[in-house]
């Protein structure tokens, strides 16, 4: 079974530039998560989708971050404009979905973003 795919693996940008990350979840997984993990901290949920609807985006800095999952499969996370404090690993995860038997979420390899 293919895992959660993310790209790019690494990205270095200057502050005030824009960046986008892509995630392809495990086939058949209805729930998709984007997490931000700053060095030395646990992952922090940015946004959770159930199919193409948003379940929770309460911690997403909406003035600069946006995410979409238009067809309920792939998702993109965008930062515009980036700040130095956005330097982190951005993890995408997926799970079977709300109301279905829960085996935990499966994570992609993440994208390491460095803002200089």
């Amino acid at each position, binding site marked *: 079974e293919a895992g959660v795919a993310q790209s790019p693996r690494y990205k270095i940008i200057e502050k005030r530039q824009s960046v986008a990350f892509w995630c392809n979840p495990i086939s058949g997984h209805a*729930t998709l998560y984007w997490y931000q993990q700053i060095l030395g901290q646990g992952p922090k949920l940015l946004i959770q989708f159930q199919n193409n609807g948003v379940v929770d985006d309460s911690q997403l800095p909406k003035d600069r971050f946006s995410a979409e999952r238009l067809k309920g499969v792939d998702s993109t996370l965008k930062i515009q404009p980036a700040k130095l404090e956005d330097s982190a690993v951005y993890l995408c995860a997926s799970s079977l979905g709300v109301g279905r038997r829960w085996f935990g979420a499966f*994570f*992609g390899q993440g994208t390491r973003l460095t803002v200089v």
Partner: protein
Amino acid sequence: EDKVVQSPLSLVVHEGDTVTLNCSYEVTNFRSLLWYKQEKKAPTFLFMLTSSGIEKKSGRLSSILDKKELFSILNITATQTGDSAVYLCAVEHNYGQNFVFGPGTRLSVLP
């Protein structure tokens, strides 16, 4: 505010030692507690615990949950250098498979 606390934050042991990692939580509408191992970047799923007092085991790893005292422990016996990683505790709360992570425990196993 929902909170997950892990201790210790870092730990250095030698191969063969046994370690116990702690996770305590304060969340609304607790549903389950999950342990993950994070090497490099991607956390990998270890255990999911929903009931108190029932130990889950996988090889040298085991975990148990106490829902009355709101904590869980992860034990690793006969540690190996390959156990070196960050161990993350996550608690599913409310509904909708929404969960919050603790800061992690960084375990280093020396040969």
